[in-house]
């Protein structure tokens, strides 16, 4: 019964829509435009946030880190920690961890023949950094570090410009050693690395971890352990196990290490819902109005239906089904054009190099990518259909309340 009446309503709705092709096309265009806009703005926001999260994780943070409890607040040499114990190694080499690496990471001053600047000296085991952090990427000039006791140094491309130096030249690194004396040593620049943000390129210089330990007289001690897992979500059980294995050290997930980016994600999420609502309300006025006109001009016909015994709720249903068809067409078109915009037209990202320094001040890289998430699409589509039907309730109920005799006699 319900099945047949639904198919009847669908046929009626579909035919009614095309009685006024022009009007239907105009309102379809409004819905499509609105949905398209929601889809691409979601894609843009997710793209920006994703890139920031990825960059942050890749920027020597990883999915989780282990430090001396005081190191994060005060990254000084006395807050170093011993190499991982057997218990900790068991977790680190376990199946949950994809890759891990220990590092030296201490403030230092770098001096070229002409300039000096403050930097963070990072001692690494080059083989373990691949896929874990930005320094695992190939260098843009010169060669990469080859082993833990490599005595060369790698600096950022834009750092080399600031220091007016280049590959093959020597620079001096000055820092505080274990005995609180100033330790310094000349390093030959063997390569230049590249990062999206200038701030990253000028923040870190890299050398072999053993070379750094020797310079600073710290034996086998390290500053931090960084690791990545299969997924950046759901890290709590792993972090709990790390804490258990190393109770006197501090283990933290990236969400705890970088609370700002988590805040930013929340702010954007809330903002997007408000944004969808604004666009939706803009189209809802048109939708309600169009359905109202459609009902109004069919007054006689609806009166006749009622006189012939159609129940009011079927009339409501008829208007709702008509709206539903309209919304579904609009949504399909909106999603398709949105997908086309983000994954075909701008598949290579939007190049904003022209505004690179401006993007940099918002800590964004100069190429912007769209990223469509299924969950966002579901949210948008459900919201448009749900609220769209609510918006058409007014004309629907209005039509159902027509008094048959009056309606039929209306000219």
């Amino acid at each position: 019964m319900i099945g047949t009446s639904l198919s009847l309503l669908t046929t009626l709705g579909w035919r009614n829509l095309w009685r006024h092709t022009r009007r239907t096309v105009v309102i379809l265009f409004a819905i499509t435009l609105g949905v398209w806009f929601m889809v691409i703005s979601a894609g843009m926001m997710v793209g920006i946030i994703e890139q920031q999260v990825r960059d942050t994780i890749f920027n020597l943070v990883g999915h989780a880190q282990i430090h001396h409890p005081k190191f994060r607040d005060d990254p000084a040499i006395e807050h170093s920690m011993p190499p991982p114990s057997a218990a900790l190694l068991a977790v680190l080499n376990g199946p949950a961890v994809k890759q891990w690496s220990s590092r030296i990471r201490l403030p230092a001053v770098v001096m070229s023949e002409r300039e000096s600047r403050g930097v963070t000296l990072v001692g690494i085991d080059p083989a373990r950094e691949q896929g874990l952090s930005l320094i695992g990427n190939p260098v843009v000039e010169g060669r990469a570090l080859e082993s833990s006791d490599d005595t060369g140094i790698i600096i950022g491309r834009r750092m080399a410009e600031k220091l007016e130096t280049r590959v093959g030249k020597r620079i001096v690194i000055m820092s505080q050693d274990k005995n609180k004396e100033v330790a310094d040593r000349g390093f030959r620049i063997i390569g230049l690395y590249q990062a999206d943000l200038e701030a990253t390129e000028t923040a870190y210089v890299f050398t072999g971890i053993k070379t750094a330990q020797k310079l600073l007289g710290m034996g086998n001690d390290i500053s931090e352990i960084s690791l990545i897992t299969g997924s950046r979500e759901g890290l709590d059980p792993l972090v709990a196990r790390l804490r258990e294995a190393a109770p006197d050290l501090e283990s933290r997930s990236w969400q705890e290490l970088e609370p700002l980016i988590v805040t930013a994600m929340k702010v954007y999420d809330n903002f997007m819902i408000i944004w969808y609502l604004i666009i939706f309300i803009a189209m809802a006025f048109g939708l309600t109005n169009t359905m109202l006109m459609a009902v109004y001009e069919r007054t006689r016909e609806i009166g006749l239906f009622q006189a012939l015994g159609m129940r009011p709720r079927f009339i409501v249903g008829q208007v709702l089904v008509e709206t539903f068809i309209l919304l579904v067409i609009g949504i399909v078109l909106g999603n398709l054009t949105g997908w086309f915009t983000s994954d075909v037209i701008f598949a290579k990202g939007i190049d904003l190099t022209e505004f690179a320094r401006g993007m940099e001040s918002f800590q964004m890289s100069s190429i912007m990518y769209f990223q469509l998430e299924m969950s966002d699409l579901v949210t948008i589509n459900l919201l448009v259909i749900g609220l769209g039907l609510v918006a058409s309730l007014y004309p629907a109920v209005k039509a159902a309340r027509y008094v048959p005799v009056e309606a039929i006699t209306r000219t």
Partner: protein
Amino acid sequence: MGIVFHLAWRNLWRNRRRTWLTAGAIAFSTILLVLWVPIQFGAYEIMIDASLRVFPGHAQIQRPGYQDKPKIRNAIDNAEALARSLRGSNHYTGVAARAQGFALLSSGTRSYGAQVVGVEPEYEGDTSSIPGLVKRGRYLSGIDAQEIVIGAALARNLKVKIGDEVTMLGGGKDGSVAAAILPVVGIFESGSNEMDRFFSEIPLHTFQSVFSMGHSAHTISVVAKTVEEQPELLAALRKAVKGRDDLVVLGWEQLVPGLKEGIQVDKVSGFIFYGILIAVVIFSILNTFLMSVLERTREFGLMLALGSRPKRIAGLMMLESALLTLLGLVIGVTIGGALVYWVHIVGFAYPGMEELVKQYNMPGLSRIYPQLNAFNFMLGPGTIFAATNIAAWIPILRIRKLEPVEAMRTI
């Protein structure tokens, strides 16, 4: 004219619901724009002002090339005399000479690299907010005092408090070693993470003797009454240093290029968003205009047959759409104006904003206040008025093609 106006007004109310819904859509978009454009521009104003007031100033006089490569050798001779000569003019509210260098600051146990700026304590407060941001201790007392003020994060990292001594070690202008021991007299909190961590100030004469600078300095920072006076400020400064090839005048756009480009990116994306929002509204209400012409074809036929010229009917319809738009605009501007006034009083903030902004090194942005001026206020309503009326013309143009007899036969 009177009768046309009367007709148009009455026609509007022939379909009250449709008129209200259409006016509602226009009012809705007007409220958004009237509220949001001033807040957006207000945010830029505060961003610019806060970033410039902390340290750079509205304009600077430097030696050519210093901005790109701030080398200690590239200094202005007799900078204080030049600054003094500028102070006579009433174009500037603040003029201060500064020398800048980089040094390793050490306390008993810690060493960190930091920017060291030599300032004229008497005048620095006119161009920079740092003297006013000293939260503990006091600012520098005189131009040749042996003292230093440092950022709060730097103080924490160095583990120093007021009265402790720090050792400064850097390279002088002539390549000699620059070293001094200075007591910390003040600790400032600027709200910018970077400044609080890497910034320190000492009196100019102390800087000149430590860094073997003679009477030279690197920049003369100038502040006008407001940022908007930038063109006059630059003109006055250029006139003041006319004939000196060894000096250049730089506006804030050149001093902090990221800020301007960042604002441009934001402005462009903001206007694209407004544009699409308006487009959604236009398509959403286009049906109203379309229907108001289509449903009156018979009436128009009659009017034509009675001798009305098509132009007159088109004029009537345009007046109708203009009245309808105005109705929406008046409602929108009234509500939007009230809202923006309310925000003007209480300020605008969202949760997490302050932390996010701090990370972008834009201090003092805890609340945004809308920038109220005629342009910001009328930009939205003006655009909407133009856009809706252009949309209304599309169906109206059909009237010119109507044949009286045929038109009267349409149902």
